[in-house]
């Protein structure tokens, strides 16, 4: 479910790259299990509603998606572009005037107005699934639609589909965000994420920007020589490689799209140690509210050749833990790990995994009750244009600074009651919404503080049960 401008722009990249990935793997054009995780196969020959075809040749692929935006520009552009046939007109919800960068407009006003419509469309997409395991929501936190209406949808999903996992990819605003009210929007959205999401993957534009620049530098410096694969999913976009523009959102959005592809790779493709989405939630969320996962993707620089010697492979693992590969401004190495997952794709075996875990473990701090807290997955199918890749997901206290800064920016506005009236005059909004939201964020930060306090303490093992002989 892509909500708002950011959500839909990322969504668009995601669907493009997903098609590309499956096209590279699926040579015979048969609609298989892997494809069915993201796409329906629709018979468009019959008039009226296309029937779903569950097997056989691919007829027409339709994305299992809902595109929501309170202004039309972005969605219209998608519908006129090369992906227009991938989306059903019944999967779209748009309006004209936008949310004015106001969470309350998105959440309360449009939420109320579009509730029935959203529920109905969600139900329809769910009905088309044999076995619905997970919803992905893609949105930004700083604006009005993605932030407000996006978290409204999150609430709806919990109400209507309580058994289905809710993974949220949230783009957090950077310090120099040009939306003045982004701290309000973000903190109000955070409360919803705290309470209704199973897993959140926070992303910061600054990090994406830095990564894109680094890749560009390496490409331009010629260090990679002739082995740079031009059609790798990291750098390509719908119309081939583009020169870096002032706001290279496509390249940045590609990174998020790749994150989602790698996250779901082991669920779609086979491997010697599968890792499904419900396993990610199970292993990485030790306490219900601590469900914020810092992600890193490697290699971004090594657009590599096929026979990479072991030395290069190990570099991929090292890079996953370096601060400049993280998708938020964070340094997991110098904070405390609650849990860590490594999802490897391509020609990597269990011994490579073990060797690198043994090697990197001593330099990482794990919480006392989870000293060997690693979750690993091996997927045989590498991403297009690479021979192997690694996605690292960390439940780590290094998210704390991001949240603390958010709280600070919020407080600077809130203390002066700046712009509050824009929110409070919306039906359903009260001052308590703000105080509850900041309280929720403070509590979360406090939980991370308490964990951090245990970091250097002596780990005293609790006494074991004694058996009477």
């Amino acid at each position, binding site marked *: 479910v892509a909500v708002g401008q950011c959500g839909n722009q990322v969504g668009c990249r995601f669907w493009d790259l997903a098609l590309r990935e499956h096209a590279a793997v699926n040579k015979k054009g048969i609609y298989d299990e892997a494809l069915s995780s993201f796409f329906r196969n629709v018979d468009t020959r019959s008039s009226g509603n296309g029937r779903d075809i569950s097997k056989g040749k691919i007829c027409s692929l339709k994305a299992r998606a809902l595109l929501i935006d309170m202004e039309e520009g972005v969605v219209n552009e998608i519908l006129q572009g090369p992906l227009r046939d991938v989306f059903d007109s019944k999967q779209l919800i748009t309006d004209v005037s936008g949310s004015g960068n106001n969470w309350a407009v998105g959440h309360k006003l449009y939420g109320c107005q579009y509730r029935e419509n959203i529920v109905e469309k969600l139900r329809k997409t769910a009905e088309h699934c044999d076995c619905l395991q997970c919803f992905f929501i893609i949105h930004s936190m700083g604006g009005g639609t993605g932030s407000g209406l996006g978290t409204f949808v999150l609430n709806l999903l919990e109400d209507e589909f309580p058994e289905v996992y809710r993974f949220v990819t949230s783009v957090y605003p950077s310090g120099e965000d040009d939306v003045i009210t982004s701290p309000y929007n973000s903190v109000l959205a955070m409360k919803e994420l705290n309470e209704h999401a199973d897993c959140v993957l926070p992303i910061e534009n600054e990090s994406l920007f830095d990564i894109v620049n680094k890749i560009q530098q390496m490409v331009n410096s010629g260090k990679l020589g002739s082995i740079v694969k031009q059609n790798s999913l990291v750098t390509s976009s719908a119309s081939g490689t583009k020169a870096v523009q002032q706001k290279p959102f496509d390249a940045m959005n590609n990174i998020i799209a790749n994150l989602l592809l790698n996250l779901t790779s082991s669920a779609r493709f086979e491997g010697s140690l599968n890792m499904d989405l*419900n396993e990610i939630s199970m292993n990485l969320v*030790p306490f219900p509210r601590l469900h914020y996962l810092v992600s890193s993707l490697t290699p971004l620089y090594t657009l590599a050749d096929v026979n990479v010697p072991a030395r290069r492979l190990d570099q991929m693992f090292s890079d996953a833990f370096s601060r400049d590969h993280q998708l938020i401004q964070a340094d997991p190495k110098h904070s405390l790990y609650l849990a860590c997952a490594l999802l490897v794709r391509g020609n990597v075996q269990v011994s490579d995994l073990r060797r690198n875990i043994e090697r990197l473990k001593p330099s990482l701090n794990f919480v006392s009750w989870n000293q060997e807290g690693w979750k690993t997955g091996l997927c045989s199918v590498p991403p297009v244009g690479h021979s192997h890749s690694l996605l690292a997901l960390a439940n780590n206290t290094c998210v704390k600074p991001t949240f603390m800064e958010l709280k600070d920016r919020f407080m600077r506005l809130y203390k002066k009651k700046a712009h509050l009236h824009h929110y409070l005059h919306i039906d359903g909004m009260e001052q308590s919404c703000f105080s509850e939201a900041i309280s929720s964020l403070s509590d979360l930060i406090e939980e991370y503080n308490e964990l951090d306090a245990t970091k250097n303490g002596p780990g005293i093992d609790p006494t074991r049960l004694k*058996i009477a002989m």
Partner: protein
Amino acid sequence: MSIVTVQLGQCGNQIGHEVFNAVCSDVLGKHGLCSKKEDESYQDACKERFFSEEKAGVPVARAVLIDMEPKVISKTLAVAARSGYWKYDDRSHFCQKQGSGNNWANGYSVHGPKHKDAIMNLVQKEAEKCDRLSGFVTIMSMAGGTGSGLGAFVTQCLRDAFPASFILNHIIWPYGTGEVIVQNYNSVLTLSHLYRSSDALLVHENDVVHKICAQLLNIKQISFRDVNQVIAHQLGSVFQPVYTAESALHYSRNPLGDLMETLVPHPEFKMLGLRNIPQMPENSLAYSTFSWPGLIKHLRQMLIANATMEEGIDWQVRPPCPGSSIPTRHSTSKPLHFNTSIANLVILRGKDMHSADIGSFQDPALYTSWLNPQDAFNLWKTPRAFNKYEKSAALVSNSQFLLKPLDKLVGKAWNMFASKAYIHQYTKYGIEEDNFLDSFTALEQVISSYATL
């Protein structure tokens, strides 16, 4: 008599597949090094045990494949059929779509009851294909959700539905670091439940097998396939046909019953470890010669020094002299800790095995005092060589082999439990803190029993 194998979860299915491969290639290979008559006897016994005949073509494995997601079973069925030497019964599998999420409670409390009928129907069908059913071997890992949780549930169902049959759980002990974060919880819950319904637990530790691949087989980039093939080889060395003391003229007909009788005299002691010698890269086999005295000497020292393979054995460890005190649990850090056994089974396969002298295994000093050493040790053998090894010896041991790993595992799980981490994921499906406490108590009891041997 036949064995029905129940393959559970990704691990169980991947290993089960390698086991049938190993058994099949052993039988079809021309490395029996024995008389034709002997070879034919062996083949017949093996076929009856593991395969049913199909009218046209290849033998069909006596197996039920179970998984809560479809990808592994699809691949397993396809690869087996492609081999051209054997296959699985196309209908003998059960899968779902969404997996168990590494959640024992999900496997045990949700998938178990929901799919009990469908699964037990398949097992019943396989059992009915057997003229005589020796029992069931389930293959599962402890770390995940399906093999562990659903495996524990299915084992209980097997016990209820087949009270007269033997049940052996073959269990994969996960790597100490990093497979699944909640692996210690899943393992504690699995072991405690299996202890109630199973006859014996035969354990393979991933860390140990990994070392064998690295140091003995010299494999550079070890894959799970390599690990699984070693496990399959070791299992084959136990379950391929043999002559026992009671069944000296024809291949023993009751492999599981015989195993239980020799190794599990007391229901408190069900943990079996497996050692195999020699293990070497295939291309070295042609250049190696083996002697029974050498193999037996090494195997015995592996037993008493608790060595996991034939390299790096501590030869300093000696059985205690009569009258001296046996080290207690708290001195497990002492390097000369001696591995006390309840019962041992040695299996010799290959040329001249009747000349092999196993007297050293009958030394009463190896065993705990409450069993007659005559009863504590058993020998099975066959002149038919196994899987290209001219001579090979296997040891299945009910001893303190698994005491330290079990103690460590329970310690780590308890440590995590004390902080209540991840508990909400289990209570969500009906496994409460009390259930955990029961499981911890049961395992502390097992640890204590083995420690005071």
